């Protein structure tokens, strides 16, 4: 019984092979567009999030409860967490964590000054959390927390007209709001994705920063990196519970609400895009089926007259539609894979660099074809395709045999 349904559906499909081929191409184009576009968008947004997370915040941050509202030197926390918090931080869900001094400051060379964020970091832990250690283009990264050398961005060395080995002055505020300033020597220059980063952040050893600012043993944030930027809920809750009410613990989605929202908007957009493509496709699909049924009303009448149950007629048309959808989707998936594969090494978009920077995108785009998206695209097309073909199929199964037989 199933065999005859499939045989009929399959042969009927190829009765008009031009129409079937056009429909297959349409479905394939639709699926390809779904997967391809989504891979590009995912690549962009994921890269953006990964970069942003790598640049500074990590996945989760711990602060003094008042720090985010009032990022002042006095709103500091213990450099070395202890007790349960330390256990959680060293637990299996957390890849790396780093304590940082973070204050606003003014950096001056002999000719220029700029306002910057000064970060006092422990190079051993910091290099696993943020990008800077790996992006040193001149000199070297800090040796240890006591290192009082200073690491600046390349763009900043240009605006300050200074360079590796030169001295600069950093001016900030101590806990009593007295101005403190001190000369530092530039021991490293780093490169970053954006000029804003190169101009905005300056690094020195955590102990050196504490001594300079007069806050021994204190830091302003602990940045934590987990297993992946999408799977942070468990880790975030664990840290939050361990830290207790005396700390503010926030995930990156809240620290950078733009990025967090973008990720959500992205997920929504992918679904909307799938739906739009599917709808554009469904008109053709339903049309093809309606035509295919219209052409063989007589046959359907004959089968009904011979005693075939309406359900079998319905099943046969659905199987026909499923065959179309399946082979169209198969081709679409294959073409998507073939077109995305050569792009795996990245698409150079540097001609749009500044525009992309405004979105927070990187200039090299790595498409990401995820199993979830491919799965969703196929499920959307197949399941909704079947639902759409129910409408002509049900009509066909409701024919009265006599009327159908008379129809020319």
């Amino acid at each position: 019984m199933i065999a005859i349904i499939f045989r009929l559906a399959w042969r009927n499909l190829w009765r008009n092979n031009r129409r079937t081929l056009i429909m297959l191409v349409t479905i394939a184009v639709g699926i390809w567009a779904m997967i391809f576009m989504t891979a590009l968008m995912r690549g962009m947004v994921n890269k953006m999030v990964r970069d942003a997370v790598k640049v500074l915040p990590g996945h989760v941050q711990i602060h003094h409860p008042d720090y985010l509202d009032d990022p002042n030197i006095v709103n500091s926390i213990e450099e070395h967490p202890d007790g349960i918090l330390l256990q959680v931080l060293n637990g299996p869900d957390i890849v790396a964590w780093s304590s940082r001094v973070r204050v606003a400051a003014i950096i001056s060379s002999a000719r220029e000054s700029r306002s910057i964020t000064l970060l006092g970091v422990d190079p051993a832990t910091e290099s696993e959390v943020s990008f800077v250690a790996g992006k040193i283009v001149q000199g070297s990264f800090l040796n240890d927390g006591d290192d009082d050398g200073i690491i600046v961005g390349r763009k900043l060395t240009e605006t300050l007209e200074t360079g590796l080995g030169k001295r600069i002055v950093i001016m900030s505020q101590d806990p009593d709001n007295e101005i403190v300033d001190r000369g530092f020597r530039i021991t490293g220059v780093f490169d970053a994705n954006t000029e804003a980063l190169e101009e905005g952040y300056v690094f020195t050893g955590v102990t050196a920063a504490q001594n300079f600012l007069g806050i021994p043993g204190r830091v302003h944030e602990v940045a934590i990196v987990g297993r992946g930027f999408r799977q942070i809920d468990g880790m975030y809750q664990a840290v939050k519970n361990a830290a207790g009410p005396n700390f503010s613990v926030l995930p990156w989605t809240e620290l950078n609400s733009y990025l967090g929202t973008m990720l959500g908007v992205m997920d929504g957009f992918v679904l909307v895009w799938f739906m739009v493509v599917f709808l554009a496709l469904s008109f053709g699909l339903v049309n093809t089926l309606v035509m295919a049924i219209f052409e063989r009303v007589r046959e359907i009448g004959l089968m009904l007259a011979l005693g075939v149950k309406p359900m079998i007629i319905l099943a046969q048309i659905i199987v026909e539609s499923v065959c179309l959808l399946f082979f169209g989707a198969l081709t679409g998936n294959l073409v998507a894979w073939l077109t995305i594969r050569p792009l795996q090494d990245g698409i150079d978009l540097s001609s749009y660099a500044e525009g992309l920077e405004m979105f927070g995108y990187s200039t090299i785009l790595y498409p990401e074809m995820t199993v979830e998206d491919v799965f969703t695209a196929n499920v959307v097309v197949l399941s909704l395709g079947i639902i759409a073909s129910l409408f002509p199929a049900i009509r066909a199964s409701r024919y009265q045999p006599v009327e159908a037989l008379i129809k020319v």
Partner: protein
Amino acid sequence: MLLNNITFRLAWRNLWRQPRRTLLTLGAMVFANIILVCMISLQFGMYGLMIDNTLSMLTGHLKVLALNYKDDGKIRQSIDEAETLARQLRNDLNRLKNKNFEGESAANNDTEGENNSVKIAVRGKAFALASSEDRSFGILVMGVEPEHEPQVSSIPGLIQRGRYLSDSKAEEIVIGSVLARNLQVDLDDEITLIGSGHDGSFAAAVITVVGITQSGMTDLDRSIAQMPLQLFQETFAMGNGAHEIVIRAPDLSDVEEISIRAQRLLDDRPSLVLHDWDDLEPGLKQSIQADLFSAWFMYGVLITLVAFSVLNTMLMSVLERTREFGIVMSLGLTPGRLGRLVILETAIMGVLGLAAGILIGTGLVAWAGIYGITFPGMDEMGKQFNLPARIYPDLTVFQLALGPSIVFAATLLSSLWPALRLHWLEPVQAMRAAG
């Protein structure tokens, strides 16, 4: 094209021989057209807002800067006698501009004269450490002309509490709300500015907060600090120098012409460079281009799918009429004429789709124009791109017709194959084909 009555009637009736098929094909067209109309007008509405809001913040349409100041932003790269130059520009550009408009309605010129003139303001910029009683932050402080600044920038209009700067010499400062919170200062509190002057000397001033601005954009609200230009010049030893002369044209479309005129006035000062907004905010145009690019990819897919749908329909309709075509061809009708009939049928369908798409699309856009469009995440996105949380799409004939016209063209294109096939048709064979 043969548009006499009988051909048209024939085409029309042929279309409705299979009403369900025609309606489904039309449905695909209308669906695509509605999406295109809505998306394109939303996009252009957004772009317009993005450009306008970004430029009216601080950038203006044109800026006169010292050579290399745009890239380096050093305090020494200043414009000497900036206010004098600004006055010159103001006079010359407006005189020339008015002359240019003389041919047009004089009354219009009188009533809107104020709006139609080119606005110009001078600014100085310096980095300084701003300290309140118990907080210090490094900021970029701006010296502005209180009488001209409100004409070129929307910042003075964002005063949430207090007032804007009153006088060019007053010891006053206006700061953003986030900065005020971080410095823990309020109206009438004093702020100490410490930095280096034009000549590298130590610069310091104590000034009173008279106004606090709020834009809702955290970055902007953290960075705004404006003081009167003359006080700025004294504090930072600028003499009569400043860093930028901002020019704001009455409309984006006037920028090019004003730029040419302004450049003429700057010819004798080679140390100065005139930058236009694209130069100053390269990210703006590029982000629009990048967005357009991805949008057109999506539209392309949509249009392709519709074209396939039409192709399938027309091919079917030609195939099932093979016998009929054979008969009329044996009566002496040329394949070319039959081909035109097929194209005409498609064209009728296309026009119907176009009309319905534009009509419904316009309705939706007009509705959105009244109530605005917002979507989850719009708030955060808006802050990133200087957009409000609600967008009122733009309605111009171009934007309305653009998408549907392309769909129409693609529709006609896809009927070419079925139409051209008729040339290979042999009447005798065709008549024998199963109807």
